[in-house]
């Protein structure tokens, strides 16, 4: 069959790309081969628009064991322990089928972790939805949340953090980013690079069905009105099968029979086999008759492009097949020897004794296109005047308005659907600045957080990129952990548009600057482009997942105020930046202006000073100041600690609104017992950290300079109200 132009286009391959393919292969393709190219050359697998810029991210330091390029990143957390982590997006599938889309997103990221030999110990997620009044939002939100819970809970892995945000730019393109973290030994890390000729290639896990055929290309295409037609490609997750796969893989990994291992994720068998072989500079030959199939009469095309979940590809040392098979049968999983490694540097597929595909591996991987797309710089917003007359507003009313908005409401409705305490090592559950889990059997812990600030990035991608890395750093510091490294998920619109590409390029610039300065490398990540429908693009949304180490769990910190009559200090300078603040956005509905600037020196200096205070046992509680400013941060500390506060606003050249709601960066609130004040003052001064003492803790109520007086009970109800009324509970 001659491949028509229409078929090529349907596979998301441009005319010039097809020409290039013909040159690389030296002949026309058959349909199966075209399918394979379309999977490997699409944005999702090839990173053709982003590669150039991803290379500029700082990815190394003395803690990094494995940076980007493997299934997940790995960092050294001492005592021969290694932490494996990554973030992954499942945006498009979740919009089409929220429960299954989100569930399989969690399943996918977990496989990335345990393929590397690590037992997953924690999950996090960042989810963005459209306007709550948009007709689709309610079902999407509840479906996504129960899907995330459904998978993670069944696997028995605690979900200990995340974020939920709403904004109309996500109306038709929600974001579902899932992060997983696993623990292994430094000398027990497994990689995907094949090694050695004539070694058996093994398929394990669930059977292959017609799930998600063309899922990977779907994830790289803009939605049009025809979403409905794309429906049958949805994959259904089976967390039970994955739990068995996890246990079977970890059991097999106890000895040294695995040469390399790779999960079948996007583009299933195609990308896993191509990646393993080409990384090892080998060839691979597969007999498709050996693929365990779920449905009758599956074609080679379907087998190679299926995205059925809960499957893995292994290359074993030859001779180890029988022992390995025993393990997988014990767990009731399929195990099939489907081929072998070769020295041909070709991917060869046989079916019913006929060679159905034969492609040079380099043409699928290293010779895939890389684009230097045109991009436009975001011009700094012109000098904009702040809205007038807001100073007559009532502070309490403004506070209530912010706390009862969907973006600032407490998210317990969400996180209570996630098992956060299974595995018996959760030190800090969702609701704090970072989640904390104990390293099993030891007295050290891992702090984890996930953050994004899309409206900052929209207003200024460079500042926004910097800011979100700094916020991650701050959230890790606030629980007393030393930040180690990050993973990132870059969610953007259509990169073929100069403006969108500009957002991408500049956001990466901002991320790079902050990561370099803070020595906070990027060890893994994911890019999701084409989050765009009918020309409406999402806000540029880089999601940053950070990990930190707490060497001694006796010094972990949280944000709950602890005792009455202690001092409340603001660390870092408050200059009252209100543009892009929750106050301007939620209360005044004013969305112009640039986000708060980020001073990396202060960020690092303030953060390290806080860590120093925590390590000397000088503070009772710590919370970073982020959206909503000082007042919202303080309210959160009061509610979680069930202790009030009496605050006097320092006499300075800024007004009350700027002081209470400004979103200047690099700041924390800390609670210090009077007996420690002298020592704290001394240490902060020694390190030239700016701080202000603004008041004292007290019983039961919040009192801001007599302009805002509220009972804690009612504040608690207000911050909890939004989800309950949205779902009429």
């Amino acid at each position, binding site marked *: 069959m001659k491949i028509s132009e229409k078929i090529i286009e349907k596979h998301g391959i441009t005319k010039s790309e097809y020409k290039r393919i013909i040159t690389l292969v030296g002949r026309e393709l058959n349909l199966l081969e075209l399918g394979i190219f379309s999977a490997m050359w699409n944005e999702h697998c090839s990173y053709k628009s982003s590669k150039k810029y991803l290379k500029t991210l700082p990815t190394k330091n003395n803690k990094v064991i494995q940076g980007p390029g493997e299934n997940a990143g790995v960092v050294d957390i001492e005592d021969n322990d290694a932490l494996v982590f990554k973030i992954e997006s499942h945006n498009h599938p979740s919009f089409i089928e929220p429960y299954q889309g989100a569930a399989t997103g969690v399943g996918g990221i977990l496989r990335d972790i345990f393929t590397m030999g690590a037992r997953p110990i924690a999950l996090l997620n960042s989810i963005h939805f459209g306007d709550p009044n948009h007709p689709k939002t309610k079902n999407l939100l509840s479906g996504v949340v129960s899907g995330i819970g459904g998978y993670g809970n069944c696997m028995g892995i605690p979900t200990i953090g995340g974020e939920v945000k709403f904004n109309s730019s996500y109306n038709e393109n929600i974001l579902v980013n899932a992060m997983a973290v696993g623990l292994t030994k430094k000398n027990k890390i497994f990689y995907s690079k094949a090694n050695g000729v004539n070694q058996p290639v093994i398929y394990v896990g669930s059977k292959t069905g017609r799930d998600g055929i063309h899922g990977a290309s779907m994830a790289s295409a803009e939605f049009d009105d025809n979403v409905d037609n794309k429906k049958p490609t*949805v994959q259904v997750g089976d967390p039970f099968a994955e739990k068995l796969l996890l246990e079977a893989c970890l059991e097999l990994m106890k000895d040294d029979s695995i040469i390399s291992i790779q999960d079948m994720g996007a583009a299933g068998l195609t990308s896993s086999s191509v990646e393993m072989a080409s990384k090892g500079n080998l060839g691979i030959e597969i007999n498709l008759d050996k693929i365990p199939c779920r449905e009758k009469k599956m074609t080679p095309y379907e087998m190679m492009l299926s995205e059925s979940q809960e499957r893995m590809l292994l290359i074993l040392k030859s001779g180890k097949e029988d022992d390995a098979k025993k393990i997988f049968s014990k767990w009731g999983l399929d195990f099939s020897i489907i081929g072998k490694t070769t020295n041909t540097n070709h991917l060869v597929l046989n079916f019913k004794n006929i060679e159905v595909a034969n492609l040079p591996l380099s043409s699928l991987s290293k010779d895939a296109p890389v684009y230097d797309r045109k991009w436009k710089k975001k011009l700094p917003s012109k000098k904009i005047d702040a809205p007038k007359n807001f100073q007559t507003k009532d502070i309490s009313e403004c506070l209530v308005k912010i706390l009862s908005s969907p973006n600032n409401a407490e998210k317990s409705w969400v996180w209570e659907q996630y098992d956060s305490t299974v595995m018996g090592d959760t030190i800090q559950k969702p609701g704090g600045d970072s989640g904390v889990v104990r390293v099993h059997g030891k007295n050290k812990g891992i702090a984890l957080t996930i953050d994004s600030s899309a409206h900052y990035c929209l207003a200024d991608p460079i500042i926004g990129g910097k800011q979100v890395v700094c916020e991650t750093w701050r959230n890790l510091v606030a629980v007393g952990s030393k930040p180690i490294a990050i993973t990132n998920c870059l969610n953007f619109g259509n990169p073929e548009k100069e403006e969108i590409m500009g957002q991408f390029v500049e956001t990466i610039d901002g991320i790079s600057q902050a990561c370099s300065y803070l020595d906070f490398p990027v060890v893994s990540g994911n890019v999701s482009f084409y989050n765009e429908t009918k020309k409406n693009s999402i806000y540029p949304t880089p999601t940053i997942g950070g990990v930190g180490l707490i060497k001694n769990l006796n010094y972990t910190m949280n944000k709950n105020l602890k005792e009455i009559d202690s001092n409340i200090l603001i660390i870092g300078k408050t200059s009252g930046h209100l543009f892009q603040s929750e106050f301007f956005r939620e209360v005044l509905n004013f969305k112009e202006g640039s986000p708060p600037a980020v001073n990396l020196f202060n960020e690092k200096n303030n953060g390290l000073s806080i860590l120093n205070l925590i390590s000397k046992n000088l503070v009772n509680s710590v919370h970073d100041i982020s959206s909503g400013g000082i007042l919202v941060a303080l309210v959160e500390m009061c509610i979680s600690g069930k202790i009030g506060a009496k605050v006097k606003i320092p006499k300075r050249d800024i007004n009350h609104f700027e002081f209470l709601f400004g979103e200047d960066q690099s700041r924390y609130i800390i609670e210090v017992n009077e007996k420690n004040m002298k020592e704290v003052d001394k240490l902060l001064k020694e390190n030239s950290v700016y701080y202000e003492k603004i008041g004292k803790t007290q019983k039961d109520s919040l009192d801001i300079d007599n302009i805002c007086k509220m009972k804690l009970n009612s504040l608690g109800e207000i911050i909890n109200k939004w989800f309950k009324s949205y779902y009429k509970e």
Partner: protein
Amino acid sequence: MKISITITLKDDVLDPQGKVVNQTLKNMGYRSIENVRQGKYFEINLNEKDEKKAKKISEEICEKLLTNTVIENYSISYK
């Protein structure tokens, strides 16, 4: 009027529950069982005598709430 609605997974959609039930029945010795698919069932009392209206309502609630039309089919029967 009583209506009953059965909801089944579309043909090529994975049915993890059916799979496990099938395997369990085999383990229990039922060799002749070839395949199990699990679905949902609803029994609804409708205060509506007009058959046409009842039909319209039933179809609407299947489309709008009961069925996940991305992966499921439904069928309605009236008693």
